[in-house]
């Protein structure tokens, strides 16, 4: 039976393909636009001959040394002037996509999201009753709106310009009035106003100019400015306007206009006439308006295309730059002088740095990186504005099926604007999203015919049925009447009329959503949360595969390319986490030459080549003994023993601070096949994606500790390091070197005790391996300052504190508050390259990089969640003897509130949990594909019950499935030893630890900085801000009678500037602190007065 398609495209294919087309064709296409002639000097460019040099640094080097992973684009250019010369010129350094489909700029991985925008073309809309308008969207240039309003006037509207009567505009273009009436065919309403009364084209032109002068008088006083762009220029001049081939095709298709060629990229007068003609048709209800949310009217730009358009801008800038140079340079005219790589480089850097589509890669776990690369945004340049986006843009459209996931989108203001591709979605050459279908003919699925990709405009007229309908083994549809999708509606159709069937149940889902088992039983809102939260799961120290999965875990793991892969076949002759040596025997004479790299390298050691009989050698001897032991008698061929050494990084770090210690999956002496993984990295177990842990869950309220989504946890999980994750923090400090004062790295820092300096080496830099806590010094630095004459007050203060006047200011790098860990890496970077000898350290040191690593145990306040959007915060960690326990003595691991299920409608968690229970007792794992209803009625429920029944019988635990309360069990209260009153749902669920850890969020403030304008304490952790004491908080303090606290908060801690400044001195001098009356305090007084309390100020 053909259940799941064997075909499954690589999940990163979209991005990779797009970038490849940019490299193959895009660069060429853009370079062709470079055309420079000035003052009889001509430059000839050969776009077909461009070359990309190999990147100078490898990916890892780029990450370590904060460089951009790019390659040089060189091209031969010929200069024809008084002398003829030809030379290879580097145009730019193009950032290159790595094999993981991200870019590395300035040492940090970046992802370019795809953008979905409205396709160029003409679209008709209805505004109100009887008012219609058409939008003409261009690839480059202004949007044009042709509108028919309430008074039946036809207008042309452009942004920032007053509207122009459209028909007058046409007359100004040279169409006579009579012709116009003839061409439009339909009666023109309000003829007098619309058509005007012009005798000649000139008259009309003057009229239009009058309108446009209005514009220029508003915008600029220079009426006779030469650079003035007329309204005609805006749409007729290819300099300012470009429809694009797709826009031209769309317009021609819309008007059935065969005559216009595709090359014509601007609007013609015929287009205008046809547009008005069509508008009238709509007005008279002959044609229908367009649906802009339909995917056929939307276009997707993926990384390659986005870069290409930016590259095009760069080329234009280069052209201008070169022209300037050509004009300026008189003598010494050389190609190398004329060209520079900066214009394109800066435009590309601008794109990667500023464009909202280029984002810091989300590297919390592998799934997050994968979905980030498959994300689709309608925001950005040329897209929608997040604040003005309407509901219709954000909502789901029937054409999204199989193309864009209807579920996965962020919550909040970006909801519906940022989406992600469905599993099988592809992009065709027009930029439309396609999805695969099987063809159906006469009620039979034609598997043999293969897969048909359909885009939204192609599927308009065909009947499409979903995959999860009943069908026979060989592919006959069982039922006569089938619910099918046609023209965005759901209709019952006879099976002979069905044209297509989708290829999988998961077709419409995105990657993260398809990982949720039993997701069809959940409310969509919770599935959304579940798929978003899976992306936030922290990689754990020990990973564990899920008991109940959907079967996509392996696919995701292999498509990621996250793990290091073995370069050739061979035997592993040496194995450690630092270095792996693979020995193999090659017949070829080619020598391998890999580039050397300090951290992750492949080097080749050439051994003596020997001739021996291939049939007789013993591989074991070859590996364990030295090369001399090979004793081969017969000459056959030259064979080379090759050793490939692979150096492994200590750990992988990520943008988000999560980190994984590598783990080997091999053994020494093992044979490894080419491209098999050497190391398993983050969140993977047995070649599967593994984000969380399987825990014993009980849905029971426990003394109110799991009220309102709080969660009670077993202490054993903490002790056994089940939810321990490794985190990495990077610190970087620059040693400033100005002419006047340069910083000194030193160990002698005054006023700091010996204990605090214990971990510093003799130069004042922290030692590797030392434990550090908040406020410990990492790098001791001093900045010399000019000695000033002290004010007498300051002198006095120094006298009191017995402090000497410093010549240095302490600018040491310290560990931030609430951070702790171990120093694992210290790197010294010189002005030019790295320093290797320690003696050189103090000279020419530029920056110091420090890595701080830490294991974070799970603790109260951490956020954990299941896969079904059932999230919560840990409120209590119980000892093992206090947890409720099952019939066979197993204590529960985690207690969830049963009230979290009914109102959220995520029943999937209950099903997963019960199937997990039978998994635990049967020692099996299940892969459940969502939407299993095609296999029968209530299949998921029956499947779970049957499995529980099996585990009942097979393991002899006959309490697992009780006939009176199936799916529930009696569990015991550990305090009394008695069973709880009601049977309780228990089971095993897959629980994730999310990245929102308390340790990063904990923050407190006693004093700190104040806002300059309002003189109130700042907000937020990064600014060391305070907690807002709002209205209700004030009530609480009032109710509690905490008068002094209230007084302090509302005066000194708020906007009482004068007394705030005096507080320190008055404490030092042990005087009484004087408070003023501030505005906030006055509000309090008024509030109390309004409660009829007679409160007044007395002197």
């Amino acid at each position: 039976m053909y259940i799941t398609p064997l075909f499954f495209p690589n999940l990163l294919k979209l991005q990779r393909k797009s970038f490849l087309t940019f490299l193959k064709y895009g660069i060429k296409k853009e370079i062709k636009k470079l055309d420079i002639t000035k003052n009889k000097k001509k430059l000839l460019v050969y776009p077909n001959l461009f070359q990309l040099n190999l990147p100078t640094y490898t990916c890892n080097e780029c990450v370590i040394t904060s460089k951009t992973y790019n390659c040089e684009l060189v091209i031969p250019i010929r200069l024809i002037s008084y002398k003829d010369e030809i030379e290879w010129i580097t145009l730019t350094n193009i950032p290159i996509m790595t094999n993981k489909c991200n870019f590395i700029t300035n040492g940090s991985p970046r992802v370019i999201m795809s953008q979905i925008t409205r396709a160029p073309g003409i679209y008709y809309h209805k505004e109100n009753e009887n008012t219609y308008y058409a939008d003409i969207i261009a690839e480059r240039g202004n949007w044009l709106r042709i509108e028919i309003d309430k008074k039946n006037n036809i207008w042309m509207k452009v942004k920032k310009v007053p509207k122009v009567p459209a028909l007058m505009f046409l007359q100004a273009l040279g169409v006579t009035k009579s012709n116009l009436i003839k061409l439009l065919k339909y009666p023109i309403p309000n003829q007098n106003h619309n058509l005007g009364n012009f005798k000649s084209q000139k008259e009309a032109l003057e009229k239009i100019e009058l309108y446009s002068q209005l514009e220029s008088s508003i915008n600029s006083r220079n009426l006779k400015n030469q650079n003035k762009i007329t309204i005609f220029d805006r749409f007729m001049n290819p300099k300012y306007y470009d429809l694009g081939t797709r826009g031209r095709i769309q317009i021609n298709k819309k008007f059935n206009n065969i005559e216009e060629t595709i090359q014509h990229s601007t609007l013609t007068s015929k287009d205008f006439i046809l547009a008005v003609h069509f508008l009238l048709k709509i007005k008279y209800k002959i044609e229908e308006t367009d649906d802009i949310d339909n995917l056929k009217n939307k276009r997707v730009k993926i990384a390659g295309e986005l870069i290409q358009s930016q590259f095009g801008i760069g080329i234009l800038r280069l052209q201008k730059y070169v022209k300037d140079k050509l004009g300026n340079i008189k003598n010494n005219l050389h190609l190398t002088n004329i060209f520079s790589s900066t214009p394109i480089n800066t435009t590309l850097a601008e794109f990667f740095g500023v464009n909202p589509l280029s984002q810091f890669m989300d590297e919390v776990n592998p799934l997050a990186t994968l979905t980030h690369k498959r994300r689709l945004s309608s925001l950005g340049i040329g897209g929608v504005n997040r604040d003005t986006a309407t509901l219709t843009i954000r909502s789901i459209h029937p054409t999204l099926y199989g193309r864009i996931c209807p579920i996965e989108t962020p919550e909040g203001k970006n909801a519906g604007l940022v989406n992600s591709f469905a599993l099988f979605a592809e992009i065709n050459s027009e930029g439309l999203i396609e999805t695969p279908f099987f063809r159906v003919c006469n009620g039979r699925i034609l598997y043999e015919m293969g897969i048909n990709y359909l885009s939204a405009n192609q599927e308009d007229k065909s009947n499409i049925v979903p995959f999860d309908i009943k069908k026979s083994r060989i592919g006959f549809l069982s039922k006569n009447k089938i619910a099918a999708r046609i023209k965005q509606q759901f209709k019952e159709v006879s099976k002979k009329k069905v044209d297509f069937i989708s290829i999988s149940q998961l077709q419409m889902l995105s990657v993260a959503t398809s990982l949720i088992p039993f997701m069809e039983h959940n409310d969509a809102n919770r599935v959304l949360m579940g798929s978003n939260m899976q992306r936030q799961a922290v990689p754990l120290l020990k990973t564990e595969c899920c008991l109940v999965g959907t079967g996509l875990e392996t696919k995701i793991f292999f498509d990621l390319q996250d793990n290091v892969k073995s370069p050739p076949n061979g035997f592993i002759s040496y194995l450690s986490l630092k270095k792996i040596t693979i020995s193999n025997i090659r017949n070829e004479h080619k020598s391998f030459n890999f580039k050397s790299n300090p951290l992750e390298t492949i080097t080749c050691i050439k051994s003596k080549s020997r001739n021996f009989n291939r049939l007789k050698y013993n591989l074991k001897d070859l590996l364990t003994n030295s090369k001399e032991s090979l004793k081969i008698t017969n000459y056959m061929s030259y064979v080379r023993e090759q050793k490939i050494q692979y150096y492994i990084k200590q750990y992988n770090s990520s943008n988000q601070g999560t980190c994984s210690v590598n783990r080997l999956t091999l053994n020494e002496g093992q044979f490894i096949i080419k491209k098999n993984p050497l190391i398993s990295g983050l969140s993977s177990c047995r070649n599967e994606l593994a984000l969380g842990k399987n825990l014993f869950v009980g849905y029971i309220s426990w003394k109110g500790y799991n009220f309102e989504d709080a969660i009670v946890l077993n202490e054993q999980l903490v002790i056994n390091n089940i939810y321990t994750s490794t985190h990495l923090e990077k610190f970087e400090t620059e040693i400033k070197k100005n002419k006047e004062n340069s910083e000194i790295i030193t160990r002698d820092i005054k006023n700091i005790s010996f204990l605090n300096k214990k971990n510093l080496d003799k130069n004042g830099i922290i030692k590797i391996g030392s434990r550090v806590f908040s406020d410990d010094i990492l790098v001791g630095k001093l900045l010399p300052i000019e000695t000033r004459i002290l004010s007498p007050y300051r002198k006095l203060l120094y006298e009191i504190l017995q402090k000497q006047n410093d010549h240095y200011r302490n600018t040491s790098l310290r560990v931030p508050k609430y951070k702790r860990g171990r120093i694992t890496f210290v790197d010294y970077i010189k002005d030019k390259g790295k320093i290797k000898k320690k003696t050189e350290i103090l000279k020419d040191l530029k920056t110091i990089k420090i890595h701080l690593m830490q294991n974070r145990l799970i603790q109260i306040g951490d956020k954990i969640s299941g896969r079904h959007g059932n999230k919560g915060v840990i409120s209590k960690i119980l000892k093992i003897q206090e947890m409720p326990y099952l019939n066979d003595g197993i204590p529960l691991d985690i207690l969830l509130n049963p009230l979290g299920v009914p109102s959220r409608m995520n029943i999937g968690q209950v099903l997963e949990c019960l199937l997990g229970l039978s998994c635990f007792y049967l020692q099996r794992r299940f892969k459940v594909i969502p939407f299993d209803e095609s296999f029968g009625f209530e299949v998921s429920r029956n499947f779970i019950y049957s499995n529980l029944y099996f585990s009942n019988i097979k393991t002899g635990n006959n309490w697992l499935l009780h006939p009176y309360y199936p799916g529930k069990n009696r569990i015991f209260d550990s305090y009394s030893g008695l069973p709880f009153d009601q049977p309780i749902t228990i089971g095993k669920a897959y629980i994730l630890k999310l990245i929102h850890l308390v340790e990063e969020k904990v923050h407190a403030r006693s004093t700190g900085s104040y806002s300059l304008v309002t003189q109130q304490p700042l907000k937020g952790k990064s600014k060391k801000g305070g907690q807002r004491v709002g209205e209700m908080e004030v009530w609480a303090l009032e109710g509690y009678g905490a008068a002094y606290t209230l007084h302090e908060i509302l005066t000194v801690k708020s906007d009482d500037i004068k007394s705030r400044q005096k507080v320190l001195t008055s404490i030092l001098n042990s005087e009484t602190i004087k408070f003023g009356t501030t505005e906030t305090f006055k509000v309090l007084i008024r509030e109390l007065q309004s409660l009829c309390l007679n409160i007044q100020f007395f002197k």
Partner: protein
Amino acid sequence: MENKLFSCIESRLRGKRNYYSRFYIGPFLKNQAFLYSNVLRRVLLSDSSNIVITAVNIVGAKHEYSLLPGVRESSLDLLLNLKELVFVKDIYTKFNKSYFAYLKSNGPKIIRCSDIILPNTIYAVDSTQYIATISNNKSLILKMKLTANLLNNFYSNLNYELNSLLSYYTNDILEKTNFSLIIDPNFSCVNKVNSSLISLDNLENYNDSISLEVWTNSSYSPRIIIQNSIKSMVNLFLSIYDTSFIDIKLENSDNFLENHLVSLSNRATFFKKSFFNICTEFNTVKYKTSFDKNLTLISIDELDLSIYSKFLLKRHNILTLYDLFKIDKRVLERFYNISYKTLQSIERKMVKYGTVNK
């Protein structure tokens, strides 16, 4: 009531680190069985009599995240493997004392628990327990610290929380040991306990008995674990058992008042005794004499020092005279940046309180 029976019904080794036994305890009166079975279960689960590795020094590893030459595992994985090792004490093993174990192996080899050189009184339960794999010509050298029942000297004295393999809190114990890698210990050797009631529901006498199932990690047999926990319970209750109450007899109404008074005085002595015991147990270091006690009450504010030196002292957690008294003069001068002058003044003022700084 008939005699109580404690018998092992079933006992088997399920794997080398899983020892299962089932016991019959009873018969009890109906409600009592419930009470005792629950108490037994809870006490057994909270048992922590195992001896485990608490700190490790690995040659070549400065921190948990470093890689070792020739070793297949990272040192973090190595620590996790060491954490899972199970050891047994014998009767000569001293309580509250740390032992040291060593390991040195040359590759190529798969290192197992049997390769560890243990002290004479400690044995490995499962000699095949995996530790690491090392490659050709490389060696792995470890020094391990084994501690039994850290609870008494670790949890109570210090503000210690189970807080990671890193163990952030630089406390005295950690600083003294010189071990670079510290493991959160799991002292419990009981994996799972299940208790159920067997009711012999004859019509006339309804007796219940407990069926107790215990799974341990083989460092102790379940039988010994049960005996131990019963012993500790009995010890606890005996220590608070007041013998003087036996004398009070209500029938002797004449002597009632007199008896009561006697018993009261007895109780006073009893409380004195037991409280003293508790105090000595908990605070072996601090508060030994009444003299010290007085010092603890006096804050250093009363010394009338300059603000700066007061600030310095307080920063280093020296809050009372007792704290000050404990600290060596040289330490104060060298590490805490206290000048010689202020030291002298402190000394002068300390004399007033009848103490002299060392």
